[in-house]
């Protein structure tokens, strides 16, 4: 389905992205910076799910990505609402 070397390279790139986002979460001066870093971690997680699903031959990979992107949008909107304490 996908060569193992490609999966390792993509996984290493995404893991580096997650590590940098964790650095921003630790350093982040405001809660909004933490929320943005969490958003990036979610995107990298979607990419990792795609790579693992291709590696293990799971046929529902695009359904997973489609549902995950819509749910990520809802989570970002609720995070933005949460930052404002429920006010609009």
């Amino acid at each position, binding site marked *: *389905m*996908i*060569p193992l070397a*490609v999966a390792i*390279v*993509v996984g290493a*790139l*995404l893991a*580096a*992205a*997650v*590590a*940098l*986002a964790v*650095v*921003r979460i630790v350093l982040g*001066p*405001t*809660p*909004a*910076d933490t*929320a*943005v*870093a969490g*958003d*990036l971690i979610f*995107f*990298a997680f*979607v*990419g990792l799910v*795609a*790579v693992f699903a*291709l590696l293990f031959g799971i*046929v529902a*990979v*695009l*359904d997973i*990505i*489609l549902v995950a*992107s*819509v749910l*990520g*949008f809802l989570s*970002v*909107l609720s*995070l*933005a*609402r949460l*930052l*404002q304490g429920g*006010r609009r």
Partner: protein
Amino acid sequence: MIATVLGSALLILGAGVILSAAIGLVRLPDLYTRTSAIGTAAGLGVAFMILGVVVLDFSWLNLLKGVIAIVAQLITSAIGSFALARSGYLTGSLPAAITVPDELAEDAAVGASDSSANDEAPTAGSANA
């Protein structure tokens, strides 16, 4: 063979774009530039990865799902980063000092001076209307 090479290249390109967004997240000076980096680069990176999955695992149904997912991803990442930047501004996340025209702060200052200059009654009436 060609599909494998092309799909692998698209996957690696998407992961590299997400990594560039993460580098921007660490290096950029304030919340708004970070939000810009995430909203554009991460959305584009996930779109490249979806395209790579479609090329590697091609069928017409997968192509349809991939196009829907790419359109949804591009729209929702932009809207989500905009909502995060807006809530960051409302909760007092200051822009970097090099941000020269801060028009939102100028609008807020003008609105505050207007409401303080006017009487209380018309302000309350306009707020109710």
